[in-house]
């Protein structure tokens, strides 16, 4: 099973994306987001990015989605729409899953397929060779780079986060 773990996690990833794209109420959509985030972490972890996976779990799931869950609970409606509540959401969900299944079947049937890039069979899903990484973990080098020659990026992202807060305050002010 461990050889197919990335494949299984990717499948759960796609299905949870479809689950919140079919637009149920935000509570259920948030649940889909949590599953997608957690499983995405798993995929990153499987490629050796242990620090980044942990960061996503802690900050994204444990910080941002928790706040999202609380605000959604404050603003919830008396009868939220789940995936089996009406035909619209269920139909959208089934359409999404069917589209993904058909894409996967199309890619697996042929020997070599070029959708945006060349893809040759299920083997490409199991082993994805990103090249020779040498002795250093690429992920750790990337994070180190962010704080050495990526200083401008840190400044811009920090400023954007501050502006995000100010904009949200300004938009929800209301008078």
């Amino acid at each position, binding site marked *: 099973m461990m050889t197919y773990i990335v494949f299984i996690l990717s499948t759960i990833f796609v299905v949870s994306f479809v689950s919140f794209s079919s637009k149920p109420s935000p509570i259920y959509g948030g649940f889909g987001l949590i599953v997608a985030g957690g499983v995405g972490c798993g995929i990153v972890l499987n490629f050796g990015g242990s620090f980044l996976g942990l960061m996503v779990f802690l900050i994204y799931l444990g910080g941002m989605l928790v706040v999202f869950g609380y605000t959604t609970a404050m603003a919830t409606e008396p009868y939220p729409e789940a995936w089996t509540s009406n035909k619209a959401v269920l139909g959208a969900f089934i359409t999404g899953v069917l589209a993904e299944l058909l894409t996967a079947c199309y890619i697996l049937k042929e020997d070599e397929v070029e959708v*945006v*890039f060349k893809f040759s069979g299920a083997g490409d899903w199991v082993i994805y060779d990103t090249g020779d990484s040498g002795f250093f973990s690429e992920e750790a080098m990337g994070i180190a780079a962010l704080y050495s020659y990526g200083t401008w*990026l840190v400044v*811009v*992202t920090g*400023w*954007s986060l501050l*502006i*995000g807060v*100010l*904009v949200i305050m*300004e*938009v929800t*002010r*209301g*008078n």
Partner: protein
Amino acid sequence: MKPPIFITIMLTVISGTMIVMTTSHWLMVWIGFEMNLLAVIPILMKKYNPRATEAATKYFLTQATASMLLMMGIIINLLHSGQWTVSKDLNPMASIMMTIALAMKLGLAPFHFWVPEVTQGISMSSGLILLTWQKIAPLSILYQISPTINPSLLLTMAIMSVMVGGWGGLNQTQLRKIMAYSSIAHMGWMAAIMMYSPTMMILNLTIYIIMTLTTFMLFMHNSTTTTSSLSQTWNKTPLITSFILVLMMSLGGLPPLSGFIPKWMIIQGLTKNEMIMMPTLLAMTALLNLYFYMRLTYTTALTMFPSNNCMKMKWRFECTEKTTFLPPLIVMSTMLLPLAPMLSILD
């Protein structure tokens, strides 16, 4: 909006566009667009009514979709070239996606549907920022990728934009919607010349921004938003009335005024590249634009609309409206044609 917050937000709008224009890394281009979008939302919602909120929501949704498409194009380019540098040799698939994304950001047809509705729902000054400053960033990226843009895609969008801008603006009386359709048509002209001479696109953008800035400032001076209230300007400020006359003729592209320079240069550029049908169609559909500018001129400066008798005996107070930079802008919007021979330094 409190002044410190307003200054911070305007600073972010400006720096977002500056980042897009000056960076050489595709990720920073995307970040610049997102910073710009996020910070312009409270500016669109300056008036606290549901119409402004709806306009800001529509703007956010379309621009966010366009940013997603742009990111897809960036990643496809990364996949095929292996590096993040903004250069002029793009993968064709990436180039098509980026062109469509930037056309959505500009409001080129067939992605123009948000422009009139968003412009109508917001205040005049927000509309000014939307139609002038927000065009600079996408056009600068199109300028940088112009050698690899698929010609049929861009020229189709250009001719459709000029047609939509012409026919769409015909039945409008609201000034903001008229300016929105005018913007769509001008973007079409700019897209048409982008393949052959990106410098002329910059020329068109500069003159378009000067003219639109002046138009909006004249409308804001009178606080008019409809054609019927514009028709009462002759009594309030007769000078503004004559300026609107000349400015509308300049926007329509009539010869002795500076609005003619970009149209002339674009038609010259297109005909030198052996395209005959295209500039003919562009020039003919620009006449539709000229028709509704003429209608504004007619109601403002050439006729006196029916009004009651008390209106003609106005007690005139001293004007307290600030007209920052308006006289130089009016001169630049109408009298630049004699400087056109200076364009020969561009060769």
